[in-house]
């Protein structure tokens, strides 16, 4: 199983903090496509090219492969500092 975390605008727009699912063997791109199928809102925001993805707290690109237990996070561009 995998945990997918959402932050900031993305969390608010989806109305969701976390989902649990099995992403073993998927790429990040495939995971986004799977989640986008949930409804129109998820589709709009998860396929947004500005969404950043981290796996185990490190930024990755859409080709990154997922294993069981990986913590995935999706979020908008950062605005700290």
């Amino acid at each position: 199983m995998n945990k997918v975390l959402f932050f900031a605008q993305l969390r608010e727009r989806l109305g969701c903090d976390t989902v649990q699912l099995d992403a073993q063997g998927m790429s990040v791109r495939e995971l986004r496509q799977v989640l986008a199928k949930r409804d129109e809102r998820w589709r709009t925001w998860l396929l947004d090219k500005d969404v950043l993805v981290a796996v185990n707290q490190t930024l990755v690109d859409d080709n990154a492969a997922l294993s069981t237990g990986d913590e995935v996070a999706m979020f908008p561009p950062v605005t700290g500092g």
Partner: protein
Amino acid sequence: MIRVQEQDFDMNEEYQSMLADDSVSGAVVMFVGRVRDINQGHQVDSLYLEHYPAMTEKYLTQLEQQALSLWPLEKVTLIHRVGKLSLTDQIVLVAVSSVHREAAFEAAQYLIDLLKARAPFWKKEHVAGEQTRWVSANHKDQIAAAQWL
């Protein structure tokens, strides 16, 4: 030393503790980022800083290590606040000590540039006369970070 915290920091305390027992550093550069009244054309009252705790810690630790490997530094201090902040509050402290000033200035700029472009913090502003708005990412910050890569 990295720290992510709700409470304010005391710049002077960090400066003193960074230099304790240090007779080597001829140069200290400090940067403080603050909540300012006008941001992206909006009158700001206060803001809320959200973050991704496991990743901010991991990323800032990594950033500190990178700076220490890229420049001959004595110490690096990175403090970033989260939670509710008001106008003129301190948000972030970057402090660097080194034998020479060139290394200290470059490393301090590197740290804040990368932090702003990569560390998972998000600002939600409470804007006068409105509700709240998420601050939009600044393209200029991506360019500033890219110059180091």
